[in-house]
């Protein structure tokens, strides 16, 4: 394999892996903050126990997000130095802003939160977790600002002398409509992930406690886990609506900004009005859309997703052949090395990742409805299927997020910086032109192997810790940590020994 292919694989692997931990962090930090707020305001110990329980799971997860995040920042320069040269004037700014505005806040205040249980006043300590919750979301904003610019470059001009993209307006970059669709979509998906996580785990615990039939365990289920199920499911329902609405806006923007991605999401060969959305397709999607047979279709839905019209001339959706013809005319039929350029992403990958994203997201939303029904008016349930569905639902929003990113990144190919069709001259870059030229394939292969092994081992450790801490359940309240029981001596402790 060439360095290019290896670098692409490495980016895919490290990014998808990083984004297993990120959405849970983004969504769970505010949920833990809400739990702790409920404790501070009501003094009810159930919220303290839930804060500590989910807080611990949050920390186990956060550590992985941090360490895999460093790789992301270094990788642009290591494997994609020519990309970095081309875009650095624009793309580097949101990354630097993320570090200064968000990452410093989240890491510093998380340290204060973990070690400050005994040292900080209750309200200041609560403010620390809120600072973390806000910062992780702000972090997402800046990273998505950088990514949205690659999807839809704005606020930029081309400097023919240096051959580089140059920023004209940071406001335009931060006001990019692609960003303002992607940000709510990503955040809503993160809340869906965290809501499912909280609801799924709490549901499983509630059922198993109720099934014991022992009075104190049933009351633990009712007092502690049931409120968590409700918090999780309400979060899921609101987030689910947010994901769908923001996804709809994204579809319309994608139709204007990256018609090739839209066409291949539907595996649509030739443009058509009132294009159908297929749920199931057979045939060979790998090379072209010619061999494709759609089996189950919803009439006009693909057109609606892209254009907002089910039928009529305005519902016209260009196919991959139209896009190929148009892009060939605009951007030429060969790359700098004289090889022909195919302006169509990998169809099978785009088509299926789009459907898997939607399918998995709908799956977790279904749990929310079931959970609200089973816990209505103060009820708890001993339905063991509910416990199972709760656990099975937990991975689905993670998978939906992964497929969402696979879709949005591979659907942009062959571009790493997709051209803005409304025209900013020369601001576009083929992925093959972005790779480092001085790095040998062996070196990329070596790093690919190293990361795969290290990440594999860490995944096992992370999974085991999450599993064990989940089945340990909510901790008993340690009374010397509640403020009523706090004596003067406790403030003498230098810190909460977390390590």
């Amino acid at each position: 394999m060439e360095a290019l292919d290896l670098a692409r694989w490495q980016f895919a692997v490290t990014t998808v892996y990083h984004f297993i931990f990120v959405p849970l962090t983004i969504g769970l930090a505010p949920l833990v903050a809400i739990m702790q707020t409920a404790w501070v305001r009501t003094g009810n110990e159930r919220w303290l126990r839930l804060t500590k329980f989910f807080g611990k799971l949050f920390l186990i997860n956060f550590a992985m997000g941090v360490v895999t995040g460093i790789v992301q920042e270094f990788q642009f320069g290591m494997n994609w130095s020519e990309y970095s040269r081309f875009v650095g004037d624009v793309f580097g700014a949101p990354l630097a802003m993320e570090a200064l505005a968000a990452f410093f806040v989240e890491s510093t205040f998380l340290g204060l939160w973990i070690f400050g249980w005994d040292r900080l006043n209750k309200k200041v300590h609560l403010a620390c977790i809120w600072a973390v919750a806000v910062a992780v979301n702000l972090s997402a904003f800046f990273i998505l600002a950088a990514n949205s610019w690659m999807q839809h470059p704005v606020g930029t001009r081309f400097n023919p002398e240096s051959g580089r993209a140059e920023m004209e307006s940071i406001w335009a970059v931060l006001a990019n409509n692609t960003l303002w669709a992607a940000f709510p979509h990503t955040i809503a998906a993160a809340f869906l992930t965290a809501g499912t996580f909280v609801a799924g785990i709490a549901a499983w615990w509630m059922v198993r406690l109720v099934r014991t039939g022992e009075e104190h365990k049933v009351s633990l289920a009712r007092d502690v886990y049931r409120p968590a199920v409700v918090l999780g499911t309400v979060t899921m329902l609101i987030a689910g609506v947010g994901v769908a609405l923001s996804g709809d806006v994204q579809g319309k923007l994608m139709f204007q900004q990256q018609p090739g991605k839209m066409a291949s999401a539907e595996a649509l060969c030739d443009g058509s009005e009132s294009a159908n959305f297929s749920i199931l397709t057979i045939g060979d999607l790998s090379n072209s859309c010619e061999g494709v047979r759609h089996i189950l279709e919803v009439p006009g839905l693909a057109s609606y997703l892209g254009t907002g019209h089910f039928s009529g001339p305005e519902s016209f959706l260009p196919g991959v052949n139209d896009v190929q013809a148009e892009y060939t005319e605009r951007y030429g039929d060969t790359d700098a090395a004289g090889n022909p350029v195919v302006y169509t992403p990998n169809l099978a990958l785009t088509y299926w990742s789009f459907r898997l994203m939607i399918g998995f997201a709908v799956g977790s939303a279904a749990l929310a409805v079931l959970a609200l029904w089973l816990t209505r008016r103060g009820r708890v349930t001993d339905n063991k299927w509910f416990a199972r569905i709760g656990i099975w639902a937990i991975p689905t929003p993670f998978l939906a997020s992964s497929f969402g990113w696979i879709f949005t990144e591979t659907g942009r190919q062959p571009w790493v910086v997709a051209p803005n069709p409304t025209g900013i001259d020369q601001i576009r870059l083929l992925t093959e032109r972005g790779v480092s030229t001085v790095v040998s394939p062996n070196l990329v292969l070596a790093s690919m192997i190293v990361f795969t092994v290290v990440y594999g081992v860490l995944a096992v450790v992370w999974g085991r810790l999450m599993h064990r801490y989940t089945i340990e359940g909510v901790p008993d309240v340690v009374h010397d940590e509640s403020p009523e029981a706090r004596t003067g001596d406790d403030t003498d402790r230098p810190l909460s020994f977390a390590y």
Partner: protein
Amino acid sequence: MDLAIFWFVLIAVLWTGYLVLEGFDFGVGMLLSILPRGGAAHGGPENRDKERRVLINTIGPVWDGNEVWLLTAGGATFAAFPEWYATLFSGFYLPLLIILVALIVRGVAFEYRGKISDETWRRRCDLAIQVGSWVPALLWGVAFANLVRGVQLDDAHQYVGGFWALLNPFALLGGLVTLVLFLLHGAVFVALKTSGELRERACRLASGLSYVALVVAGGWAVWAQVAYSATWTWAVVVVAAGALIGVVVATRRSREGQAFALSAVVLVAAVALIFGSMYPDVMPGLDGGPSLSIADASSTPYTLGVMTVVALILTPLVLAYQAWTYWVFRRRLSVRDIPAPAGLTWQRVKDAAF
């Protein structure tokens, strides 16, 4: 002032923040194998683990925030000097890869060490922390010494020297310099943040390490001055030497706060020497070959202007709340404070799973 030069200075400041702050984190990580005592006279192996936990908890609340200085330095280099970021990161590929892996295993080991109460698990995490501290402590010095010495670039600003050229004697000695300085900085930090025997041991070690640093860092600095650096950085070398002697005096008088400030001054001086030697390049050429200058590497005045506003607003804020963190956790730790291990055991998991 020219914005590009301002950003060159600002990136030096960010690296100073990183090396001063994570410098003692690395030092503490390295000392995990040196300082704790578990012999019969000290209370047995249990004491060793308690002392290790004291060490790790001294940096517990702050190490992650300290590491963000690296991410900020990297991000700022990308934004302000894209050519520098591209050439440096693709050129120094292998050392950076090793540093990345070291930082990954170290960070995870800090967070996960106490999560499972098991002897084997703790030993593995200790190993990860130590490897993750020794290796970057050496490699950062190797990387920066190469930037002082100059690297082989082609006319398109690509690094073409290969990996082995980075392991020249000057750079290897540079690696030893950061290693010793971080070890010293960590020892002083432990002396400042602990009490009892650990504090005394750290003080003695810091005093000894100051002499070693004087020889190793002094030798390297003189080599750099004679062969590669500017005249004015002689002043920096003198300041650093004075500060090292000051560390010896301060630790003998048990004035750990002063000693810590002085060992931080040594690291500030090291960054000043490194960046002073690089100026007016960000990557000097080897033996007068093609180089990458500040002007060639920099972003447009517009981007630099935007980033200047952002940095001038946010950096003081960061300094303020990070300083507050150190204030909150200002008390010394001792083995007496260390509670019983809180992590999960298999037994506890089984009990919970009824």
